[in-house]
């Protein structure tokens, strides 16, 4: 530890920000030291993103001051932020797939020769240096569109680093990554911190925060609840700070007897999959599916639902059904909650009601004319049953928090009376409180005799809630565990395709 690490590079003092009707931030103090990894934790809507957007010059604060290296600065635009050495890597990957790795890394600062053309040799050389620093074995000439999500994430870090930042902000960088890629990314972040870059790391995942950060600041309702040294705090304390209440039962126990087979899948071969797979699902069962990024889980379930082409035999309640498109799957009693709730799940400009009713409109219509009252009643019922927090059924889903958006998509399938629910990473990117509610809902569905396929890349929740877990690796099932036998180690072994220890 050198002295530098105790001196703050960035101080935000009494930051306030109001939006119409919402106090997004009030009196927020935040400081960041040289070479530290400072985690920012809080439920969705706690104010993390607003704080970061103020730091990045996207929003102007309504009050407060920002000091950088003890100097007061006014960050009035993203350009100013970049000039001041603040680099922000946003959650959605802002990358240009059609350009090469080098183009993306050196975006806006291509080396230019005297004749005014881009000096390609120097560009590739500089990009190569950057890639080496990141430990990334990639050609700078590769087109970014052909890279995996993890590699794109690293290219974005490279882009941020090429501007020699003093402060690096990462907003949930691992939400789209598998466990192995996360390890790799963490190595890179730690090395950067050792070189003196101050990192603000935003995440919902406590594991990551404990592995990575030196300090952690918890935000709730736009206020700072507290800052702790990471090695002096506990999960329980952080969760308590986040939600303001004890979460005794993160994974609620269910007493459900598992019934007869509701779904049987025989030799399902999704397009571009290496091998056919077979499995079955029972009434009242939560069937977990675990696998790392690229293991083929999404390809499997979207093939099962007819969203992508697949061949094979599917039996629902013992009767064969032909599923060529999602329409057929819906009619067969299947419901699918996709990973990307904003682009695949919801019609964002539509209201809560519009989204809830989307898959079941004809049953609330007479001769194709909508029965408004019946629809409103049904919507209100789901809003209450699923505890969807909104101003009413007419609020657009764009303004809902992630957890509530997810509940709307789930509600759509309950409204459509699906018997088999395929949930693809339903808790990804939503806060702890909302996660618990989703787990509870899954339990309720089982109690009603529905079957749930629960795809996830987070081990604790799978171990906590699934009755049975199938592990995928390279498009094949490499392990099947009852809840009682499953451990993190066994699942991970199966997921990376190694023999499972006893």
């Amino acid at each position, binding site marked *: 530890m050198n002295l530098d690490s105790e001196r703050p590079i960035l101080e935000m003092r009494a930051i306030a920000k109001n*939006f*119409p009707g919402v106090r997004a931030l009030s009196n927020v103090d935040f400081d960041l030291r040289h070479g530290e990894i400072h985690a920012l934790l809080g439920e969705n809507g706690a104010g993390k993103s607003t704080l970061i957007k103020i730091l990045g010059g996207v*929003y*102007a*604060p*309504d*009050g407060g001051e920002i000091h950088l290296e003890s100097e007061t600065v*006014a960050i*009035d635009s993203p350009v100013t932020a970049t000039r001041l050495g603040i680099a922000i890597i946003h959650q959605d990957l802002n990358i240009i797939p059609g350009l090469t790795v080098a183009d993306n890394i050196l975006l806006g600062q291509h080396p230019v020769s005297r004749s005014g053309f881009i000096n390609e040799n120097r560009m590739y050389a500089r990009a190569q240096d950057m890639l080496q620093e990141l430990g990334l074995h990639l050609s700078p000439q590769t087109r970014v569109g052909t890279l995996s999500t993890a590699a794109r994430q690293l290219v974005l870090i490279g882009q941020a680093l090429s501007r020699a930042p003093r402060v690096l902000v990462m907003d949930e960088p691992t939400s789209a990554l598998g466990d192995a890629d996360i390890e790799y990314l963490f190595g890179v972040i730690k090395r950067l911190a050792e070189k003196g870059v101050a990192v603000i790391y935003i995440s919902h995942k406590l594991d990551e925060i404990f592995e990575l950060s030196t300090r952690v600041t918890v935000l709730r309702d736009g206020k700072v609840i507290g800052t702790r040294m990471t090695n002096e705090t506990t999960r329980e304390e952080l969760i308590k700070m986040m939600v303001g209440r004890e979460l005794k039962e993160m994974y609620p126990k269910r007493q459900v007897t598992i019934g007869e087979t509701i779904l049987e899948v025989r030799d399902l071969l999704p397009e571009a999959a290496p091998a056919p797979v077979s499995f079955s699902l029972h009434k009242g069962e939560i069937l977990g599916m675990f696998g790392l990024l690229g293991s083929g889980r999404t390809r499997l379930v979207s093939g099962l*639902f007819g*969203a992508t082409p697949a061949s094979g035999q599917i039996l629902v309640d013992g009767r064969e059904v032909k599923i060529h*498109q*999602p*329409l057929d*799957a*819906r*009619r067969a009693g299947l419901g*699918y909650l*996709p990973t990307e709730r904003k*682009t*695949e*799940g*919801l*019609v*964002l*400009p*539509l209201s809560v009601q*519009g989204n809830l009713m*989307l*898959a079941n*409109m*004809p049953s609330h*219509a007479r001769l*194709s*004319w*909508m029965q*408004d009252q019946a629809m409103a009643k049904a919507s209100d019922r789901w809003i209450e049953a699923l505890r969807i927090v909104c101003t009413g059924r007419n609020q*657009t889903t764009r303004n809902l928090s992630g957890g509530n958006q997810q509940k709307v998509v789930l509600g*759509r399938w309950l409204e*459509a009376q699906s018997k088999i629910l395929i949930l693809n990473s339903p808790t990804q990117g939503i806060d702890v409180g909302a996660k618990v509610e989703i787990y509870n809902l899954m339990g309720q569905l089982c109690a009603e005799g529905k079957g749930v396929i629960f795809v996830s890349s987070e081990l604790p929740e799978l171990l906590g809630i699934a009755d049975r877990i199938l592990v995928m690796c390279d498009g094949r099932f490499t392990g099947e565990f009852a809840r009682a036998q499953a451990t993190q180690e066994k699942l991970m072994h199966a997921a990376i395709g190694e023999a499972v220890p006893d």
Partner: protein
Amino acid sequence: MLAEQAATGERLRRLFGKNSPMGGSLTLIITLVIMIVVFTAMSPYFLQVENLLNIARSIAIIGIVAVGETIVLISGGIDMSIAAVMALGGLAATAVIRAGQPFYVAFAAALAAGALVGFINGGIVTRLHINPLITTLAIGQIVRGLAYVGTGGYTLTVALRGYTDLGRGRLFGLIPYPVILLAVTYVVAHIWLNRNIGGRYVYSIGGNALACRLAGLDVDRWRIVFYMLGGIFAAFGGYVLSSLVGASMGNAALGVELDVISGVVLGGASLAGGEGTIIGTLLGVLVLGTLTNGLIMLNVSSFWQMVARGSVLLIAVLLDAWRSGGYR
């Protein structure tokens, strides 16, 4: 300072922004009122009943066609073939009349022709996954060419009273029939878009087609239906036009698709889909019609009228960008 500016902008946006109850309509109503005041001050003839009815009649045909384009735009598509379909609809109607059939058969023939072109448009866009702009441009050219072939380059006149009455007649000797058709069309379309499942799907599919497909909707089939409606309303407009003129021509309604799309976009329909209203479209068409009429009253040359119409459209698009939160 910055914070104050941002707060003022936020307040303005709350009053006039997309999520306010006034929506985009308020700016249009204000524009309309300003235009009426200015034109009334500059020309004594502007605010007379006869002239107002003139405006209404001049926008009736474009207004009817704009209903179909509104549906297609909100659903996330675009139809550039509507002007050609108008010519085709007129041709189909006059051909049937000249073959000795009554006017309602002619009407049915026109709508059927429009529906067929819409079916082809929608089929190509959904099944072959071709960009709708290119598809409908190409189909529009083909249809326009066929209309020239069908008329042989001549003007096919019709003098049947029952036929021309629709375009030229007036109810109680006062209100032109096309204006009544316009009103009925808008009431029906408004109710359909807001109360019918099909109308709901227009907004849903335009808002996010992928999510709709994953919700188990037959997105492709519905999009074909929307393009067919686009064709049907275009042919309907073409029918009224030919009955007004008393003839069909290969070059009927040439270039009208730009006026129609201008009106629809001015009315607040999003080119990205998912947003727009029938009332907005009516106001958009009304603003353009009033502008043209007022400029004619003021003896502004048709060249400068084009400049003015283009400017209004540009301002509308800029306003739209600002309302939805900036130009980024």
